[in-house]
């Protein structure tokens, strides 16, 4: 089987990267870098093992390197371009925006764990493998992520605003 197998994972990678980076362009750049890396390293993938996990592990490494390069700012865009479909009730759109802003305010390592466990539905052990950290680290990051998100959702003013946000309600 060739590297074309990755084609089927592109939609999922884009969705994950979008939530991870909070920005459509950055997300697709990250996915593109991930696919390029996958093509180069294809011989290292063990056929039969979970391809999605392998791709997410590659993406994680690229993402961490980017954060290192931009140390002073995690550069997480605050989803200023988050789409608000016209058919969506305003209250739901506002709620969604609050959640995305709170997610954006999480430190990247916590955001990664939260997304892998909740959205991608990986087990704690699988998430640990993707991120190359012990399971205990996954658990403590998950706990901090959820508690932080809870505080942010209760009091959004706590979120550090790195980017001017569009007010959607008030």
């Amino acid at each position: 089987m060739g590297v074309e197998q990755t084609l089927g994972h592109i939609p999922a990678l884009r969705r994950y990267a979008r939530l991870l980076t909070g920005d459509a362009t950055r997300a697709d750049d990250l996915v593109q870098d991930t696919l390029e890396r996958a093509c180069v390293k294809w011989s290292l993938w063990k056929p039969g093992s979970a391809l999605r996990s392998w791709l997410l592990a590659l993406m994680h490494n690229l993402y961490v390197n980017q954060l290192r390069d931009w140390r002073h700012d995690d550069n997480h865009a605050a989803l200023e371009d988050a789409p608000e479909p016209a058919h969506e009730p305003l209250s739901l759109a506002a709620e969604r925006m609050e959640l995305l802003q709170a997610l954006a305010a999480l430190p990247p390592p916590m955001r990664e764990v939260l997304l892998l466990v909740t959205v991608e539905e990986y087990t704690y052990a699988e998430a640990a493998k993707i991120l190359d950290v012990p399971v205990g680290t996954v658990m403590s990051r998950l706990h901090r992520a959820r508690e932080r998100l809870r505080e942010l959702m209760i009091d959004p003013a706590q979120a550090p605003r790195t980017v001017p946000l569009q007010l959607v309600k008030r």
Partner: protein
Amino acid sequence: MNEPLEPMSDDELHAFVDGQLDAGRVQSVLAWLQANADDAARVVQWQAQRLQLRQVARTMELGDSPPALTDVVLRAAGGARRRAAWQQAAAAVLLLAVGVTGGRWWGQGGSPVAPPAMAASPSFVREAVLAHAVFVPEKRHAVEVAASDEAHLVQWLSRRLGTALKVPSLADHGYRLLGGRLLPGEGAPRAQFMYENEQGVRVTLFVAVFGPGQAPAQTSFRSVRDGARESFYWVEDRFGYALSAELSAPDLQALARDVYAQLAR
């Protein structure tokens, strides 16, 4: 009922929320939550976060994948391992369904004869089926060059395939040309033209131009089915053509006969 409850770890509360708790522990966690309102409130909020995040992820409008993403992969496949990769990927696509439904040979009378082994079909047909599967679902980037620039499209693809190409019209059948794209093939580039009718049904015509002595020997009109997709193919002189769509065999055959007639003209 009244025995003191052992304190519950945060890890177990998270596992409860994430559905990763050992089944044998669920009752203990429920009992703990009933007795500890603060933890119950936290767990309920974690659960709500989880549901909201999943909802946001599910309903996120991502739009079509930029072609650059698929191109990265297809370019790599078109490199040193082009031959093996395309064959394997095409085989993978076909294995999904062809193994179950089989294919049919179409004799001169146009009726099905014996199903051929998919592996027996020329490699350009497998390339065509894969290319159809990859690009037909694309909404905004289905083609590289749009039909609005048809002269340029034909000139460009003719130059890259090394011979003058003709683009048949399917307007009589209600299909308009959307455009085309250049694809890697076994040892040579290929062209794919895409058509669409008012119901959004898409038909692709895949064109291979073979070098001297490289054309597959078979020349008859044949078909192969890959799940809902039907493909008709034929080889004439140095050209191999494959017409694919999610249509019934008789419907696609009518289109294929017209395409054949126009190209032979």
